[in-house]
């Protein structure tokens, strides 16, 4: 039966997009977890939900053209706000997160012309089957953005590594840390917008955090954790998509459930093996 399902174009699209999103999110996930920015993904995903609500109210034919720049701008502001004002890191993220969620739902309730408002909201929050209803145009956009994200990560791997582990030392060594923090924020925003299709805005953090945390159970070097995280993320994403297709379960939550199972297995393995490896 699986072989039959794999002949469907929308299943192939889901696998291509799911693999690319999982790869991108896991690479940046390591950086975010190490920089104690795990919840920035959650905050930005709620901002993206708010932006999607505004795009829906404005009847924009292509939501992505509005949601992507809006989320990137929020990521930049979030980073700036966290650094320079009295409202620091976690409080700023929490405020923007719940604020965008509330305003988004309020706008949808007041102005949406959809016959199924609760369905639209549920679909955006939990992903539903949106990964299986992608158009080739959306798949193309996802491929292009994913390649850009991967290229940025590979080209600036050493700088991202330096900024992640010791920002003060990196700044003293002449690395433009503000510029790289900005770059990381923009890349995160792009990944968040892409990942909304896969798991919905409420579950995006899982894609970013779980593979990195699982890899950290067994590996301790940045390169080891990054490679292991990428492999785990892609494998869990593929397994989640295929299980959801075969078992008729929601795609997003199935992927997250597989990630949780892998995290538990890796935690047990780490205990059995007596620690992490380089």
């Amino acid at each position, binding site marked *: 039966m699986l072989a039959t399902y794999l002949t469907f174009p*929308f299943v192939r699209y889901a696998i291509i997009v799911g693999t*690319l999103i999982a790869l991108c999110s896991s690479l940046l996930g390591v950086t975010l977890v190490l920089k104690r920015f795990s919840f920035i993904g959650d905050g930005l995903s709620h901002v993206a939900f708010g932006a999607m609500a505004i795009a829906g109210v404005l009847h924009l034919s292509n939501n992505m053209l509005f949601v992507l720049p809006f989320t990137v701008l929020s990521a930049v502001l979030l980073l700036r706000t966290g650094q320079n004002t009295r409202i620091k890191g976690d409080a700023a993220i929490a405020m923007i997160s719940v604020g965008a969620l509330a305003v988004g739902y309020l706008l949808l309730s007041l102005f949406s012309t959809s016959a*199924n408002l609760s*369905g639209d909201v549920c679909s955006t929050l939990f992903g539903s*089957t949106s990964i299986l209803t992608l158009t080739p145009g959306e798949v193309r956009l996802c491929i292009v953005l994913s390649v850009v994200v991967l290229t940025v990560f590979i080209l600036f791997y050493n700088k991202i590594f330096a900024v992640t582990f010791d920002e003060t030392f990196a700044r003293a060594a002449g690395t433009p840390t503000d510029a790289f923090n900005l770059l990381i924020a923009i890349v995160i925003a792009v990944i968040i917008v892409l990942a909304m299709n896969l798991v919905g805005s409420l579950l995006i953090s899982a894609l970013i955090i779980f593979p990195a945390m699982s890899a950290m159970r067994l590996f301790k070097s940045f390169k080891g954790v990054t490679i292991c995280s990428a492999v785990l993320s892609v494998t869990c994403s593929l397994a989640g998509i295929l299980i959801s297709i075969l078992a008729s379960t929601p795609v997003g939550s199935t992927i997250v459930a597989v990630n949780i199972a892998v995290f538990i297995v890796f935690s047990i393995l780490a205990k059995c093996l007596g620690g992490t490896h380089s």
Partner: protein
Amino acid sequence: MKQLSILLVLLLLVSSLPVFAMAEYGPFLPLSSVPGVDIDLSQMSGTVVYAQVYNILMDPQAYLGKTIRMSGYYDIYEDSVNNAVYFSCIIPDATACCAQGIEFIWAGDHTYPDDYPEPGTDVIVTGRLESYTEGGYDYLHLVDSDVVFLTSELD
């Protein structure tokens, strides 16, 4: 390491190239083992059926005239203005917060409400997909439909 990584990205891009050549919603007709049926949605998993119905509704031109077999639950819409009743086969998604359906017209002489069960009854509908225009809007429905209400059979 860097060269290897760049090679990996290029490999990913190249392997995805066929997508760039595809048209929006190409006509795709899953094979059916039931004689006389072009698209059998009743044998697929709920997740795949939901996505396939979405594709049919988004690109109906590729599916018009095809005989579709689908299972879901039966529902009605009563239009009090035009004094009309519409019958449909509804398919919910895996999160059960969204649902899509296709209207059907039951072949033969059937009177509503005498010959129809309660809305929510499981149903299998086999019919030919056609489009029609009403009130300036285009709609889809399955015509000449063979309809089997599952629980009414058991009762």
